[in-house]
């Protein structure tokens, strides 16, 4: 149930609130294109999708968890840990399909563990996933002693840029994940249950929804998608380290919130999440291309993300979503 805050406002304000995030993206496009001619090129835009495909997939996974009112701080650590295990297996067996299954399997199991601890035992998601973050990353450091696992087979490291039907593998996976996630969320009864659980757990329970199972399944899906992201990022960097994806969890949460999701659950959609993630990627890419000093990049990125997230929340509160 949405509560619309009724207040007098002009049509211009309505327009700004409803399409604010797109206006922000357009403004950024314009500014970056003027300052750096190489920004608005096919190569650069394809590069952005290429470089950040794993991040967008991770954000889609995070969205499932946030929809049910949870959060997963361990997804970055899952990528590091499963990437290390997968890489070690790949180096010894050279079997890429099995490696991919192992990576996805590990991440899905981690997601299941997160889900069980949060939904069955009742540990707050923030605390539980923070604990698991330490565990998975610590396990990664223990196995590697801080070293990098490199020497992965070329067939695997070239995977992310391999073209299938003319489309890069990483981008093709992103498209498929987006379409499937959109279908599941918006056209299936399972998706409706997710929204119901996130919106009002008690009402969902009364309606006969197995709240615990739905809540847990969101973490499993997040784990599964994190596994897919792991394959892409490990192929992208051609190695595995315990320090990989250190900030991924927070970046994914930011993308989901910028996209209009409610941290308390019950609100959010795939389009918003993808747009939030793309905004994040555009900002990073644009600031690099215009050569802005690193310290200023931190400030500017924070300001843009703040305004984008605030605009989306105001839009939702005004009932314009």
């Amino acid at each position: 149930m949405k509560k619309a805050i009724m207040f007098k406002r002009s049509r211009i304000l309505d327009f700004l609130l409803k399409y604010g995030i797109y206006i922000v993206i357009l403004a950024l496009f314009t500014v970056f294109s003027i300052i750096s001619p190489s920004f608005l090129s096919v190569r650069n835009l394809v590069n952005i999708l290429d470089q950040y495909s794993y991040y967008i997939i991770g954000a889609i996974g995070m969205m499932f968890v946030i929809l049910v009112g949870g959060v997963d701080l361990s997804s970055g650590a899952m990528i590091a840990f499963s990437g290390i295990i997968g890489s070690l297996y790949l180096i010894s067996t050279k079997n890429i399909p099995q490696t991919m299954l192992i990576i996805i399997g590990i991440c899905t199991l981690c997601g299941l563990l997160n889900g069980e601890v949060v939904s069955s035992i009742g540990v707050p998601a923030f605390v539980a996933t923070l604990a698991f973050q330490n565990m998975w990353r610590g396990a990664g450091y223990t196995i590697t002693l801080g070293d990098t696992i490199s020497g992965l087979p070329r067939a695997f490291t070239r995977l992310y840029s391999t073209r299938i039907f003319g489309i890069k593998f990483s981008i093709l996976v992103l498209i498929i994940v987006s379409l499937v996630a959109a279908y599941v969320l918006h056209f299936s009864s399972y998706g409706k249950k997710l929204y119901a659980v996130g919106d009002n757990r008690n009402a969902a329970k009364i309606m006969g929804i197995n709240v615990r199972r739905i809540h847990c399944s969101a973490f499993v899906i997040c784990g599964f998608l994190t596994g897919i992201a792991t394959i892409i990022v490990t192929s992208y960097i051609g190695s595995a380290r315990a320090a990989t994806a250190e900030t991924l969890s927070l970046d994914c949460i930011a993308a989901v919130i910028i996209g209009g999701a409610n941290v308390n659950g019950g609100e959010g959609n795939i389009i918003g999440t993808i747009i939030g993630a793309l905004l994040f990627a555009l900002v990073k890419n644009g600031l690099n291309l215009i050569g802005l000093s690193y310290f200023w990049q931190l400030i500017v990125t924070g300001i843009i993300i703040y305004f984008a997230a605030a605009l989306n929340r105001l839009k939702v509160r005004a009932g314009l979503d």
Partner: protein
Amino acid sequence: MKKLLCLLLTMCLIMVGMACGPVASNSDSGSEGNPFGHDPKADGKLVAAFLCAEVIGQQVQFEIDEFEKGCKAEGFDEVIILSAENNVETQISQMRDMITRDVDIIALYSADPDGVVPGVEACNEAGIPVIAVDRSIYGGQVYFSVVSNDVSDGRDIAEYFGLQTAGAPEGTVKVLHCIGNLSSSAQNSRHVGFRAGVDGWPQLKIVAEPATEANADKTYNAVVDAFKNDPDIKCIMVTMDHLLVPVVQALEDTGHLFPPDDPNHVLLGSCDGATEQLKWLKQGINNDVIIGLDFAGFGTYAAKAAGRYIRGEESYDNKYQTISYVITRDNVTMLQEQSKLWGLLPGE
């Protein structure tokens, strides 16, 4: 819902269109990746990029400043400085962004010598030369390397501890080895070297290796806890000079800070060669050995290599290993007067 579906389909079509579209090569820059000369861009501007694993710390800022100054002297119009915060995937993305930006040369202070290889290979394909700064890169074609040996630097601290405590019975000289930022390959290398050095001195024994993540609070707590467990610790190693500040504070608070000539003095060793800690050595207080790296040299030689590339004066795969100085109370003034210390210039 229909609207949502339409929007989603539209986005997919756009993505597919972009993904299938021709990828512009670097050829519009005019450069064909000629390692023995450089074809200038259409606008005639020379742009260098310095991609750093991190930009925090006096030593890195010094390195960056020297590189910028050197590049300007070599005729570069713009120098772009980026930080990857020790993330390999971020650094590779930055390298790809610099390829898109069509810079003339990339100096790379890598987040990981193995992990950045895909980025280096992408630069090789795009015809943009890569200069390895501070640490080597283990793959791809590197135009020039100006590096230090972090393993050797860590070992030198252990050697100093060993020499200072030579003659003590086996296993009686207790060492606290504070582990720094595990995502930094340079710090990891120093730890590897230090452990190897300790193994060579039978009297030295590492009694604790707390993970401090190169963080001041954690370093302070690690030292306090270590001395609670074992008040007889004789040597402490940290990977970076600034971490000696919380170490000294912790020693003072636990009553274990003694002057160097006191038999209870705890030997302190670190790397880099930062100003404050060099001044301590000069004043004869607190610390005992600093492995001084040539951060000025990193920036200067990297900039000179960039200049040589532009003029076509040098071929690929050349390397220059900088000299690290073992700085103690006995030689700090002499090294300062000879301008060997980036952190303490003559007359300071």
